[in-house]
């Protein structure tokens, strides 16, 4: 093949190219290491005359340049064309995304984080107390001596060794008071146990959240403040709180905290059982004897204890109709959260 043929063949082929891959193949065929142009260049040394060798070299290089320019132009042209084609292409963007392989967090853990964040902003520190507890911490030091009739408030599970499965998170109260100096602001979110058959509304294993606040001048006013703050955060601005007298031996006064049903705003609906209110929390001012048992002088300090059952609260808030879902590990339930 001579140089003229090589040039016209190359330019013709470039003209017919319709894709970037083809263009690259064409480039290799003509300008590649074993391409036509290199072939011709390699033949130059065979020419007998110096002038011929020189002019042949110049000609071939100019052809090479022309081919390169043609390739470059074609390249630009094809890229422009590609962009136009993207405009014409189609893709179903409504097609659902590919699910990442992630798990699920238990609703009680999610709730625990919510509650903890809220109270830690008020300076409460999270604490834990044993589940298997000495009678003293669960009852005796909380003003509930053995065989006292008020023990009927708690149906207790006992171990063979005499310890109780704690019936409430309040077993942390004496432990924390003895460990700390006022002001004391602690909270706990953990499990408790009662002698109770399991059904949609009862469970022998359940969760409690409780705060203990001991300082100078802690009053019923702060109980109201905490109740309002918390219940509005959980149930929404439409709720209100209300106190009723309630008896717990370790507080005086003791109150039950009700929340106005946010679904019917107190008119009475299916969710609140036509009551208009939910019994949500139990609270009170720490009994002076309990403060003394905790090593705190009730003449100087007073305290409040405030607690509620997260299981029940979530059931109300999320419309869960059976407490057992929390403890049975059914993935159909868990994967909803």
């Amino acid at each position, binding site marked *: 093949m001579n140089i003229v043929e090589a040039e016209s063949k190359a330019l013709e082929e470039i003209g017919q190219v319709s894709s970037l891959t083809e263009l690259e193949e064409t480039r290799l065929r003509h300008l590649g290491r074993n391409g036509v142009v290199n072939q011709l260049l390699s033949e130059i040394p065979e020419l007998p005359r110096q002038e011929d060798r020189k002019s042949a070299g110049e000609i071939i290089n100019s052809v090479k340049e022309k081919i390169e320019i043609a390739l470059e132009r074609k390249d630009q042209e094809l890229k422009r064309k590609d962009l136009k084609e993207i405009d014409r292409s189609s893709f179903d963007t409504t097609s659902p995304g590919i699910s990442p*392989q*992630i*798990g*699920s*967090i*238990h609703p009680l*853990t999610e709730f625990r*984080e919510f509650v903890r964040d809220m109270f*830690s902003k008020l*300076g409460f520190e999270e604490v834990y107390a*044993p*589940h*298997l507890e000495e009678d003293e911490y669960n009852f005796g030091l909380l003003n509930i001596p053995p*065989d*006292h*009739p*008020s023990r*009927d408030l708690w149906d207790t*599970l*006992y*171990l*063979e060794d005499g310890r109780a*499965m704690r019936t409430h998170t309040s077993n942390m109260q004496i432990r924390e008071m003895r460990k700390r100096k006022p*002001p004391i*602001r602690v909270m706990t979110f953990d*499990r408790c*146990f009662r*002698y109770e*058959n399991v059904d949609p509304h009862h469970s*022998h*294993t359940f969760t409690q959240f409780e705060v203990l606040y001991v*300082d100078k*001048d802690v*009053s*019923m*006013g*702060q109980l*109201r*403040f*905490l109740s309002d703050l918390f219940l509005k955060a959980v149930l929404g601005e439409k709720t209100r709180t*209300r*106190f*009723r*007298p309630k*008896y717990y*031996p370790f507080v*005086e*006064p003791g109150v039950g905290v009700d929340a106005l049903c946010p679904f019917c705003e107190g008119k009475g609906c299916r969710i609140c059982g036509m009551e208009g209110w939910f019994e949500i929390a139990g609270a009170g*001012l720490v*009994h*002076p004897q309990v403060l003394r048992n905790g090593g705190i002088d009730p003449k100087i300090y*007073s305290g409040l204890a405030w607690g509620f059952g997260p299981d029940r609260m979530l059931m109300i808030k999320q419309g869960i109709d059976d407490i057992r879902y*929390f*403890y*049975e*590990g059914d*993935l*159909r339930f*868990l*994967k909803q959260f």
Partner: protein
Amino acid sequence: MLIPYSWLKEFVNLRKSAEQVASNLSLVSVGVEGVQKTGSDKVLDLDITYNRGDLLSVIGVARELAAIYELPLKGPVEKFQPVEHLSPLSVKNNVSLSKLYTLTKISELRYKTTSKQIKSRLEAAGMRSVNLWADLTNYVMLEWGQPFHAFDAEKVGRRDPSLSIEIRSAKRGEKIKTLDGLDRDLIEGDIVIADKAGAIAIAGVMGGEETEVDEGTTEILLEAAIFDPISIRRTARRLGLRSEASNRFEHFLSPDNLYTSLNKILQLYQVYGKGEITGFASVGERTTEPYSVGLTHDKLTRVAGEALPLSKARLYLERLGFKVMSSEKGLLCWPPHFRGDIRIPEDVAEEVLRLHGYENILSKPIQTTLEEVRESKQEDWRDRVTSGLVGNGFSEVKTFPFVSTTVLTHLKAKDLLRLKNPISVEAEYLRPNLLLSLLEVVKRNNPRYSRGRVFELEKIYPKRGENLALGALIWGEKEPFLELKGVLEELGRQAHLKLEFFPVKEEFLHPVKAVEVRVGRERIGVLGEVHPHLTTAFDLPEAAVFEIDFEKFADLAQKWGKFTPISAYPEILEDYSFTLPQTRSLADLIDKIRSSSSLIRELEIKDRFETKEENRSITLKVAFQSEEKGLSSEDISPLRKKIHKLIISSGGQLRS
């Protein structure tokens, strides 16, 4: 407690509906379970708390309502006054068992059926009619809160003509046949009423059959007493005989109220039974010595959170029956005789606030000094590990703390903590690990979910003490052991812990695919495939599990890693492909290669094919890099040879 509304109206002139009254009571006094319509009347179901024993009576609730609505209380209030000519009765009492014991003899009784009104009230209050004598005791108990017991005096006389009544602790081995016809074994500490022939009643709990009143009874020994509440409660619970009467004995009873209610019941015995009072005895404290509790204005303010005028407080207390004296500093208050629960200033403050209205308590923000809030490592790692596992596809579960006896064949009962009073056989023992709970979770979900990943971060209760454990389980995956090991290794990396794994034999784990997890010398848990005998027993697919002591993990974990400088010189990457038998340790080989040269910056498993056969194929990617210069092929080739040698000497075979 059930109270017919019409009965309340006999004592206080209520003009509101039963429902409104119920609602007011629940906001000021005690919980109301509901209001039921029965015939033309309504019945209030009250949830009386331990401190308010005085409300276990129609009169008590009427008094409370009179205080709430500022209405006068109607009805009789005189106490029983024994007249001089009554013959004395022989009663021996021990005041530690019975604070007050009275016995009244009523003679020449003539039986008649119980009136319709009394019967219907008893029924509305949830009691059934027995005979006139017993019905009257129950009727007055419901109205006044004081229980009574009527003995047939003639029947007692047949046993013990001297009618010598003694209140004493039961003797060892003593027995009595109770009203329900059953023989009861008594123990020391039970209080009995006895004559010379033995026990005739279990005090406060149930009378004896032998001295029971019936339609033929013409002479009655009527007991009105206050027994030791703790003893009554213990006996009633032990015998499974809790009743309206024993319940009231468990609460505070007032001697003054006893005399008032005695007056009332004797009137009724005279009206309905034509009886005559012929004898009386009383041993013990006949009245409560009045005592005062001081409430300073400062105290009231500290409880309420705001300053309430003392004059107002005084009015509230007087409405509730307190005698009050004002002083400069505050109030001196004498509680009414029926309130055994008022002992300290806080109790008085509560009374003031109840009548003031809890809804009127103003919200008061917390004002305090800010203290250091210590961040708990355990809390911090709880959150990090939870989100780490959730990000790796695990669903968090929470399960019950018990192990069911269905898995007991896999456990030794002596290693477990047992409950003294288990609810059921499914909840008799406390779980020693999370594995069994997690297997139950799989059982619940399989085969609906043929594969899955779950974890639990909760307490376990091995005999050595309760412990916070982290357990994770995967099932239905191809290489469960390696998949789960990778997850645990990642947790270790996040905590900047060097986890080491050593083969181990564990009862619940696969005989070969099981390791102990250590940090330094400390064992923090185990990892392995679940033993085939367990997966078979639970009818489950292949599963792997790890369980670690989360308290140790969180304690050892390091939040902040340390930066290793990044070299400015280029790195050279090489792949090494080889096969290695399952009998040889890949971890050892990797460690040897890693320590074969300081120029090895990174080493990772690029590809592997772990077959069920003995040989697996592995490709390691090694990155060489120097901190001082760019590496040339001359630098690498001796290192490459060294690595090849290590692979071969470790039992591997190079692939081209």
